């Protein structure tokens, strides 16, 4: 079953697809410039020692963002 939720709620090693990015202004631009647009597949590869920021693997590269920035991104994942 598929379900939609915030990127923050994803677990390490979990995969998902971006369905919406609601950030505006500087943050929104930065997120989109890095290729985080709807339809993009991603996988959480790890979290920093204090659980924040989070590291994501997109198709061909890895990027990091803070949890409060991840909150603007909605993903669709395979539910258990």
């Amino acid at each position: 079953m598929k379900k939609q939720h915030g990127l923050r709620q994803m677990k390490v090693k979990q995969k998902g697809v971006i369905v919406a990015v609601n950030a505006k202004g500087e943050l929104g631009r930065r997120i989109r410039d890095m290729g985080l647009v709807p339809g993009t597949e991603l996988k959480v590869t790890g979290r920093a020692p204090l659980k924040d920021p989070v590291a994501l693997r997109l198709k061909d590269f890895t990027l990091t963002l803070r949890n409060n920035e991840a909150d603007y991104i909605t993903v669709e994942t395979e539910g258990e």
Partner: protein
Amino acid sequence: MNDSLTVALAGNPNSGKTTMFNALTGARQHVGNYPGVTVEKKEGHCEHNSDKLHVVDLPGTYSLTAYSLEEVVARDFLVHERPEVTIDIVDASNLERNLYLALQFLELGIPVVIALNMIDVAKSRGMSIDADKLSELLGVPVVPVVARSSKGKTELMDAALSVAKKQQKQQPFEISYGEDLDSAISEMKALISKAHFLTDTYPARWTALKYLEEDKQILEKGRETDPQVAGKLEKIVERVKHHINTTMDTYPEALIADHRYGYIHAIMKQDILQRDDNSDRMYFSDMIDKVLTNRILGPVIMLLILMGLYQFTFTYSEVPVGWCESLFGWLGGVADVALPDGLLKSLVISGVIDGVGGVMGFVPLIMFMFFGIAILEDTGYLARVAFMLDRVFRIFGLHGSSVMSYIVSGGIAGGCAVPGVMATRTLRSPRERLATLLTAPFMNCGAKLPVMALLIAAFFAKHEAFVMFVLTLLAWAVALMASRLLRSTVITGESTPFVMELPPYRLPTMRGLLIHTWERTWQYIRKAGTVILGISILVWAMMTFPGLSDESVQQFDQQRKAARTAQPEAAQELDAAAEDAELSAAAGELQETLEGIDRKEAETALRNSVAGRVGTFLEGVSSLAGFDWRTNIALVGGFAAKEVIVSTLGTAYSLGEVDPEETGALPDTLAASPGWSPLVALSLIVFVMFYAPCFVVVVCIVREAGSWKWGAFSMVFNTVLAFALAVAVYQLGGLFV
């Protein structure tokens, strides 16, 4: 060179742009700044088939919005300087995201050649790219290259030169942004073309797109050029925005980005990229990250690496620093012998040679530090440091990368804020960077240590290690709190988005490291050298002028004469004796008396100088923190370099110049002086730790922050803060003692 062609190198950060730049220009390069901003401008020259080329390395960017300084600089260069050709360095192993920028170059309608860099890495990951097909679809030459080994360089330059020589006007690339936006764009484009609105600089369609993206720079330019047309355009944008918001719950800017990526996606689908492997394959980098950013192992390894960097910078540079010191010591000796006693000699030795020596003494330090940081940066480890520490530093309005600057500045006691302030260059977030470079000088640098050692030896000899440890913690606490304060007052603004690439680990090339190190060091020597020499002479003048009046000079002469005439035989023996000769008891005594008079004269002269007068004048205020005029003069001298505080205190206490490393009688003198107590010492230690940075650091702050305003700010802010803390220590401490 007038008749040479200009080639611009552009591309994403970490796409190997700088490597290609080094491969093209070699050592024939020059690093400066773009006018008015602190973004580095790298230029160089090269020859290709007897054509002379002027190569400019643009700052690495992901996009061409007005969002960051780097992006504005890059696009301004492209539209105003109009290079004959722009080479877009594209990371072949990360094609989709890199094409996002390439697409924007094409839309800007500038002559472009795409270099598919790191084609070898892409191959090793099981990707194969059809460069010819890509070239056909985008309408520009696409050349596979490997910048590291210069493979494909000749083909790339052939393609670039043929584009540059055509001098043809490149037709701006047009892609569809969906029905709603497309109709608005055509309406705006017609309006723009008709009014010749900004068309000298930008293609009409591009201006329309930037209006829809609500690009600050273009909106401003538009209003200045033609308020009427600008008003009409803005109205169209308002209408579209409203429409899109109600029908699709999004906004034009986001829609534009989606369509650009959609377009790239569609291109890729046309057999541009083949993967012979599933895309979930674990790359080498991911495996390294499993260890290096592990919850427990990660921080431990990071601590070791940062301590290693510190050791490397400060331990291994000791030898060349020693050479520098002996060279300038030797020069001082030569000047001492060659010049007659007097003002000129004093100027040459204390003003010029000490000043230049002070500047050059930092050079090996800076070289070692930048070499170390270049390794961390080029391997990709620096981004991991920022990743791991971001959560902690964000609380104080800083960035994970701030830790480097703090540690080099003396976060591990004994660093130096000069390389520390320069290390903030690796920070891409402007506000966090400014806060870091303003607070890094609070750390306990190597020059503050002799002052602390002196005061600790005099008053807290039993607890030396413990006091040093507490002072290190205090430095961190104050630096972090001060940064928090600055970020909520002077440097306000939300924290810069952290969205950051973790580049794959790469082995740096020695050539790249050396070029990197050298250009930074040379910049320091060139820019800082001249200013610092001037200030050094100024400080010297403050401590020298006005000299003693003839009357008091005569008085001291008379005292000397009187001492000599009282013991004529001893005086004779003293005059005849060689420098290290054994003296009789009487002659020894006379020598001591004479030296005592000399030192008394030096003390009187110092008190009479501008610095002395300032010190005396400030005694009224400084007594709140327990400092008398002697301490004040020493603190004024400390602006030249913190270790000068020790030698000046020596002069002020009539002990002659005191070597900071070998304080001799000074601790005992201080401990015995009625004006001193452990509380005064503590108050002074606190003040020295936090007051105005030495002027070499101030000059570096000015350079890195881009204006004298911040240099002046750091002197005033730090001194006020330090004084408040010192007064608090002295006054509150006084209640308990």
